[in-house]
């Protein structure tokens, strides 16, 4: 049976206006299930743990990235499937799974296409999507990127570009799998599960980092992509350095904050490792779209 953990504060209380429509749609699809609401931070983890303990095998996070993160931190069984109905302010995880709107999410829950991903541990916390540090983390503290609209975007870009020009690169040292160390002047760094970007690939950490672009035009391009990346950092083709690993230890001088799925989650130095904790996600990603997929002849 489906177990829906609902964050009533997500997306500035969007669920209040949406609840009846949403439950009606789920009912029509035959996946109505049990519906519980969180009462504060950390509650989704507690509810997820209780749901697993009482035998539920499909848990749906109804909210944004914070809700999803709390839910996955409450699941320690491989046989539990996690779904998402994205109604938060930030829905990066859902977007990465190909789920953009709540009606689409309902269809995806009914279709139940599952892909298993290994979780990443940063310190004591588990996450699925992306960890970032450097310029992008600093940017989030100084520029409000939540407001939409052309004028707001132009203002965000101007503020971000100004910030980028004055941002001092961090001296960074990364120890990788105990096999090599990498040192550089760091502008921005991202860590994610490679499989999350390409379901055909193995579960491995992909670490992507960039030094500060010297040319203003290039810097502007990087800033623009950062604003539009949805928390993905340099995991696209702007990275100048990229490699795979199972465990990295990141030190910076000076120490800096790290963000996980768009939320501040600690500071360097930090050890990040791929865990053997797997979660099966209900996804909309079409495997045939990915390089290496063997299609019908």
């Amino acid at each position, binding site marked *: 049976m489906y177990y829906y953990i609902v964050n009533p504060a997500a997306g500035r209380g969007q669920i209040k206006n949406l609840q009846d429509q949403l439950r009606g749609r789920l009912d029509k699809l035959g996946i109505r299930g049990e519906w519980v609401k969180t009462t504060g931070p950390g509650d989704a983890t507690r509810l997820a743990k209780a749901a697993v303990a009482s035998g539920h095998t499909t848990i749906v996070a109804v909210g944004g990235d914070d809700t999803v993160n709390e839910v996955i931190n409450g699941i320690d069984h491989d046989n539990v499937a996690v779904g998402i109905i994205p109604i938060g302010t930030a829905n990066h995880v859902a977007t990465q799974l190909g789920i953009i709107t709540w009606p689409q999410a309902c269809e995806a829950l009914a279709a139940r296409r599952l892909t298993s991903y290994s979780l990443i541990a940063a310190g004591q916390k588990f996450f699925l999507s992306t960890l970032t540090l450097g310029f992008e983390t600093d940017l989030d503290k100084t520029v409000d990127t939540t407001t939409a609209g052309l004028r707001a975007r132009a203002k965000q870009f101007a503020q971000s570009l100004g910030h980028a020009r004055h941002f001092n690169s961090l001296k960074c040292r990364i120890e990788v799998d105990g096999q090599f160390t990498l*040192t550089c*002047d760091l502008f921005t760094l991202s860590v994610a599960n490679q499989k999350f970007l390409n379901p055909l690939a193995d579960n491995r950490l992909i670490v992507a980092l960039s*030094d500060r672009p010297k040319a203003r035009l290039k810097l502007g391009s990087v800033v623009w992509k950062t604003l539009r990346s949805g928390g993905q950092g340099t995991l696209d083709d702007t990275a100048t350095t*990229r*490699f795979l690993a199972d465990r990295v230890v990141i030190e910076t001088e000076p120490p800096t904050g790290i963000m996980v799925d768009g939320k501040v989650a600690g500071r360097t130095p930090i050890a990040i490792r791929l865990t053997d904790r797997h979660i099966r996600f209900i996804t909309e990603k079409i495997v045939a779209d990915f390089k290496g997929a063997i299609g019908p002849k």
Partner: protein
Amino acid sequence: MARKTHDDAFGAAGAETMIGAGVTVHGNLVSESDVTIDGQLEGDVTATGDVTVGVSARVKGNVHGTNVTVLGHLKGNIVARGEASIRETGQVEGDITSAGIAINSGGIFVGRSKMQTIPSLDIPADAPIVEVKTKPAAKSKS
């Protein structure tokens, strides 16, 4: 350096490894995909795919890969299952063992080279000769 697209970089074989120009690596680098080095590396490189030592790269260590292309500076041995190539800006101080070798005008190579045959094409001298009969190709109707 030619930049691969996002789709090229995140293939099913795993993302390629790239070491940027401002980066220094100490230790051995192992990759199941392609490797491109534009920075400084002290240690061995072992790749299932191709290895490219970029124009600005300084590598001190041995390089193992399918095809190895050197445009920068490498002090160490190359073992390539395919071709080892030194471009016009490349310098190699070390031995090369590969199935093929190409050195462009301007490239510098100080060392020994050994052509290594591809094992799957080795035919033993005493292998039996087998006669194979084939049907003539059907005539086309066009």
